[in-house]
């Protein structure tokens, strides 16, 4: 059905073009012109800073100055001990592995939770007003800042926090659990709490576009609930899952605030390393690190995009 509308629309546009006196060549020129503001913004605020970062990453620096140059020392410093130090991992590798570990775990947990919430909203809540209400409720945590939502966990999870007091009060443990705070656990908990909505929204959006008739058809054809889920809902919700995954992966890769606060600053993250370098005016080193991070994120995103053609799906 969508196809017929599509071709219909295209045909009417094709008919309109001669009427407006536009020839193909002119149309293309005008299209470029119309896209120009967007291009300018893009060039000024994205390409230019990126180019500067790349250039600076090859510069020389002292403790109080940076000098234009073309040296590879910043990159060499970054990978210092990465090869001759094997089998012990160098700082950079270790930091990236730790960041990737968080990326993967947070992605997996937010996916499960995000998918379940979206599924519930899309298929179990029947009326549209109710769906909208439930959806708005999901966004309530976003009314406060990220830092506040993070810090709110600290009195809960601390050594003398509510959770430990409750556990000891119930006699489950007699010693406070130390791993609740300033640990991998608390970092993952906070990241999941902060970013699950980024998973819910696109998946919910994809699910809302699934024609209910398809699910009925699956049931009529004798598919079990599980089969409907794996063969109908998940493939059709794939663009949403992918977009949500891209959000979560890119955010967690660059995060240093959450890992810093919830990890008691004992856990390294690429962002924190860059921040420390900037604080000590080691801009070229920070730039080299940023370029590496960018490459890592782009690799992750391109791997995700292999799985789905976003332009086609949207």
């Amino acid at each position, binding site marked *: 059905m969508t196809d017929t509308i599509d071709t219909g629309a295209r045909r009417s546009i094709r008919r309109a073009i001669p009427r407006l006196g536009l020839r193909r060549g002119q149309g293309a020129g005008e299209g470029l012109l119309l896209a120009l503001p967007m291009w300018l913004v893009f060039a000024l605020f994205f390409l230019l800073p990126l180019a500067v970062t790349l250039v600076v990453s090859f510069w020389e620096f002292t*403790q*109080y*100055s940076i000098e234009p140059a073309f040296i590879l020392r910043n990159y060499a*410093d970054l990978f*210092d001990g990465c090869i001759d130090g094997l089998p012990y991992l160098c*700082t950079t590798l*270790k*930091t990236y592995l*730790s960041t990737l570990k968080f990326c993967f775990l947070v992605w997996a947990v937010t996916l499960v939770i995000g998918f379940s919430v979206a599924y519930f909203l899309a298929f179990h809540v029947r009326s549209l007003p109710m769906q909208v209400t439930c959806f708005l409720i999901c966004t309530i945590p976003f009314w406060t800042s990220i830092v506040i939502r993070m810090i709110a966990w*600290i*009195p809960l999870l*601390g*050594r*003398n926090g509510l959770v430990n007091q409750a556990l000891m009060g119930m006699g489950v443990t007699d010693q406070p659990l*130390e791993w609740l*705070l*300033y640990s991998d656990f608390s970092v993952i908990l906070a990241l999941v709490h902060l970013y699950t909505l980024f998973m819910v929204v696109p998946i919910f959006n994809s699910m809302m576009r699934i024609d209910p008739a398809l699910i009925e058809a699956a049931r009529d054809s004798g598919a079990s609930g599980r089969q409907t889920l794996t063969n109908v809902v998940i493939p059709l919700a794939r663009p949403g899952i992918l977009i949500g995954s891209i959000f979560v992966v890119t955010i967690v890769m660059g995060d240093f605030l959450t890992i810093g606060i919830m990890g*008691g*600053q*004992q*856990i*390294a993250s690429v962002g*924190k*390393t860059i921040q*420390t*370098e*900037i*604080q*000590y*005016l*080691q801009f070229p080193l920070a730039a080299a690190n940023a370029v590496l991070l960018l490459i890592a994120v782009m690799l992750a995103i391109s791997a995700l995009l292999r799985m789905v053609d976003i332009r086609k799906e949207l």
Partner: protein
Amino acid sequence: MTTTRRTFLKGASALGASTLAAPYVHAQEAVTLRYLSTAVNQSPGIAKKASEDLGINIEYIAVTTDDVARRVITQPNSFDLVDTEYFALPNLVPSGNLKGMDATRIDRADQIASVIREGTVGGKAVGSDGTAPFEVLYLDAADGKAFSSEPTEFITLIPTTYNADTLGIRPDLIDGEVNSWAALLDPKFASKAAILNIPSIGIMDAAMAIEAMGEITYGDKGNMTREEIDFTIAKLIEAKRAGQFRAFWSNFNESVNLMASGEVVIQSMWSPAVTAVRTQGIACKYQPLKEGYRAWASGFGLPRTLDGRKEDAAYEFINWFLSGWAGAHLSKQGYYPAVLDTAKEYMEPYEWAYWYEGAAAEQDIMSPSGDLLEEAGATRDGGSYEDRMGAVACWNAVMDENQYMVRKWNEFIAA
């Protein structure tokens, strides 16, 4: 009477002149100085009093310790007066963005505390490991980019505050005495210790602890060799893997929260943070240690581009700052001011006795804002000025091998 066009215009111009005149005079009077420093150094009380006494407006720009230095180097026109630490000077002075201050325009230049001018307290030399202020106090010329070891007329920074830092402890949660920096890495406090995640200061605290354990004797804790850095970081990594640290902190509030919540019972700490924990009614002691203190000093510098009325106003403000009121205000928060004698004039005798002489408080000790700090009978942790500043072992520093050290510190965080 007929209102002609002529009389109307006359009236209008008179009106215009009178309304224009006022802001013009006003603009002549009040100079605004943009005062760049960390938030801890920016007392609203001082800005208010300065504006009353001098008619100079102080506009605070609050950033973190490291950002003050970064701003001086990267945006030297964004402030008129900077309050920065002496240890940043080896980075700031070569940039040429600060000017040598004219000592003849500073009324009390020769009354500045001897610990800053000469590195002595009561005639006895204190430790000079690290960037001791007297080593970087003078420039060789007004626009010099090198320090002078002899006193000259060109001063880098006029001290605002300085102090001696040590470990903070929770005496209610600790059994037995703590009297050495070694306690920071003592397995007895495993998972209850914290260190600060500002590499240049954190590594000094670690060095104090490791040296106290008898593991190494540093040539200069504030200017380590690569081997010394390697050794220190290796020890820190070992302690971290053994679960010594509960967390690291990088700003004042984090250190207060760690201590107040009981997550940490021993950590490197700053004096006002100890006070902040105590005002919550929680026992916290700024424990004097036998190896001595790690000291720091902060002071006013002027950007090279400052001139004319703003420069005059800056000198006027600095002279006012040294004239006593501000010194007393800071003393009552636990800091030490540049000129002690003038501060004394603005303090009650019992306050002076408590803050400077190590005597028990005759009356309740109040903060400048009127909060109760200590009840009558209490004595200051560490005792008198001579006892505290006289026991300084090292000063905050930026090492020659700073780049290497920061890299190794990142390795420690990632370990």
